[in-house]
């Protein structure tokens, strides 16, 4: 981050009454020698999650744009702390054509002393990168892939998941539905492997919280007359009764046209309608609107799930550096995965990382396109140690086994 952009972040929408004297004064406290700490940021040059062919960008599953500004906001937020503790927090970002490319980038950065890299990658690519850099003192923040296998059988010690898992999202949805006594759920499943994982997660959530899956029906995004039963929303939701329709659609293109088209007049949740999210720009509690406003000062668009995950990743690093008085890499990791981590994510209760699968504990707002209606854990859903652990796979059920 350059000095001018720091100043921009600090002065924000000032009235023009700020004297240059005042601006420099706060920064000029004492000239401690500064240690640079850079955080890396990698994504694919052809980011499949932003592919315009994949889905219309206003659907909840498609990010509004590259989440890089989320990380930039985190670095801007860290400048004051950096000045005080003598650390110059910075960000390096690279696009890669392939995982080999990104691996080379991360190796270069690691050689310069970098320990933390934010990765905006789909699940398969994330695993490939994590295995490729496993020999380095590098921890990767997953800000995009919600697949539960990454937190279960395929977990990796060098990956931390800042984006919620599918299971956390379906748990949030199930809690909401159960709290409203909408317990009979018709599940519509899209064709992708991620959709299969979401359906698996929803089935576990329903079982855990006492809802009932009436039926799981596959859908197709197609007008093919020979497949009418699977392509037509009214037909695919006909012939049975239910309280609510849950749509597992990782592309969102089918779900986008499903509301008000169901055979019975029933609400839709999941990929359309009421969507469980990591972040919503319409979130207003817990100081969240201030985070969103700072983000919108950096980039003229709404802040979304992946942006928040990138922002909170930088925050995890900054807090670990601050609270360990700039400890070495093992000390930083011990703090980050320990009980004392106390992140202010703008989502209420302080956030920390589950040691058993490296998933960030966090509240899940349930949002429409322009309003947050509730947030999970829904009132009344309790856990014996931390209510945030009612969302996602709990320690006893976890299939993740870190070496050593």
């Amino acid at each position, binding site marked *: 981050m350059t000095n001018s952009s720091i100043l921009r*972040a*600090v*002065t*924000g*929408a*000032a*009235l023009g*009454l*700020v*004297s240059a004297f*005042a*601006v420099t*004064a*706060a*920064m*000029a*406290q004492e000239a401690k020698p500064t240690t640079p700490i850079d955080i890396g940021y990698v994504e694919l040059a052809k980011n499949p999650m932003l592919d315009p062919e994949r889905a219309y960008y206003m659907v909840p599953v498609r990010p509004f744009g590259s989440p890089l500004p989320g990380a930039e906001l985190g670095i*801007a*937020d860290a400048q*004051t*702390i950096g000045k*005080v*503790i003598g650390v110059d927090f910075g960000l390096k970002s690279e696009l890669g054509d392939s995982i080999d490319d990104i691996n080379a980038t991360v190796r270069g950065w690691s050689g310069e002393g970098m320990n933390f890299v934010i990765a905006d990658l789909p699940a398969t690519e994330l695993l490939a990168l994590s295995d490729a850099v496993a020999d380095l003192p590098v921890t990767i923040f997953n800000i995009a892939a919600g697949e539960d296998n990454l937190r279960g059988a395929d977990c990796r010690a060098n990956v931390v998941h800042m984006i919620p898992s599918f299971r956390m999202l379906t748990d949030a949805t199930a809690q909401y539905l159960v709290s409203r006594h909408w317990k009979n759920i018709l599940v519509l499943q899209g064709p992708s492997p991620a959709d299969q994982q979401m359906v698996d997660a929803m089935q576990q959530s329903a079982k855990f919280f006492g809802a009932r899956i009436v039926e799981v029906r596959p859908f197709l995004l197609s007008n093919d007359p020979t497949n009418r039963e699977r392509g037509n929303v009214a037909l695919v939701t006909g012939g049975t009764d239910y309280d609510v329709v849950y749509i597992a659609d990782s592309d969102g293109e089918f779900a986008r046209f499903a509301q008000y088209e169901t055979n019975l007049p029933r609400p839709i949740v999941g990929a359309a309608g009421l969507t469980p999210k990591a972040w919503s720009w319409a979130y207003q509690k817990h*100081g969240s609107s*201030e985070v969103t*406003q*700072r983000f919108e000062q950096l980039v003229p668009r709404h802040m979304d799930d992946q942006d928040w995950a990138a922002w909170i990743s930088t925050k995890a690093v900054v*807090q670990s550096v*601050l609270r360990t008085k700039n400890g070495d890499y093992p000390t930083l990791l011990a703090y980050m995965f320990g009980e004392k981590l*106390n*992140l*202010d994510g703008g989502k*209420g*209760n*302080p956030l920390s990382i589950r040691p058993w699968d490296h998933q960030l504990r966090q509240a899940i707002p349930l949002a429409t396109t322009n309003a947050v209606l509730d947030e999970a854990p829904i009132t009344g859903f309790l856990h014996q*140690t*931390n*209510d*945030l652990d009612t969302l996602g796979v709990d320690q006893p059920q976890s299939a993740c086994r870190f070496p050593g």
Partner: protein
Amino acid sequence: MLNTSVLKRLVSRLAPLALILATVGAAEAAGTGYLFVSNERSNNILVFDPANDYAVVKDIKTSRRPRDMHFNNDHTLLYVACGEDDVIDVIDVATLEIVDQIPTARSPEMFVFNKDQTELYVSNEENSTVQIISMKDKIIVNEIPTGAEPEGVILSEDEKTLYATSEVADMVHVIDTATGTVVDNVIVGTRPRRFILTKDAKELWVSDELSGEVSIIDRATNQVINTLTFVPPGFRPVDVTPVGMTINESGTTVYVGLGRANHVAFVNVATHEIEDYTLVGSRAWETRLGPDEKLLYVANGLSDDVSIIDLETRKNIRTISAGRIPHTVLVDDK
């Protein structure tokens, strides 16, 4: 009480006599006794009369998102920071009408006056500064950059030092008011919010909302010398989100609103011991003492009400309905 409010009305009408009358009034009476509650979401200040079973005397429509409130020194005017309209509304206590406005930068939340009320210090969350506003000209005379989301501000007794929290940078900025510069920073817990100064002027207490603590700073060294952790019965540390704090006149007790833990804590200032917890409404933030320190009023942000605690028994004896998201309570006892 009635006399005083009549007197205040006279004061506002008869400007030339104001000074004399106000002096007489202050010597004789204890204000209207009214309880003022600012409500962030319903954009109003509700005025209750404790002497008349807490009947609503007036619903004052303010600018949007009214939050922190302060009286002027003789309690003829009430100031309220309105975050959504970038303004501090000025209310005539006698007529309960808005009579003036002071423009600020974006999103003012907490503010303090200097002693003679010629200057006002206000934190501005969105552009991360504390502004110094001249009350005479109603213009911003200086602006001091802080960490992101500055919140609590407090001025030392000698007015030489201003303290401001940064919610995002987890620190307290120590600001020299003469030069308008940050001269020191004290790292505290997560999301520091509000302050009190102990009466012996030795300690600065800071509520840390997200880490559920109060950090106690030794003002001579600017070091945190103690950290209080609150765990009221039936709650876990993660549910405790302290924000509002009040100290009594004799400086022996601090009352801390514990936010989502729905309790107020009573802390012994001399020993730093947490003596009691009292159950109140949902998300208890700002606390304020009633006349003669017999009652404590607590704004409950998420149950839209105000709890009234009897300080003799430390029990919640009554709850009155407020507007939507009550932010600050204030009693006109002068």
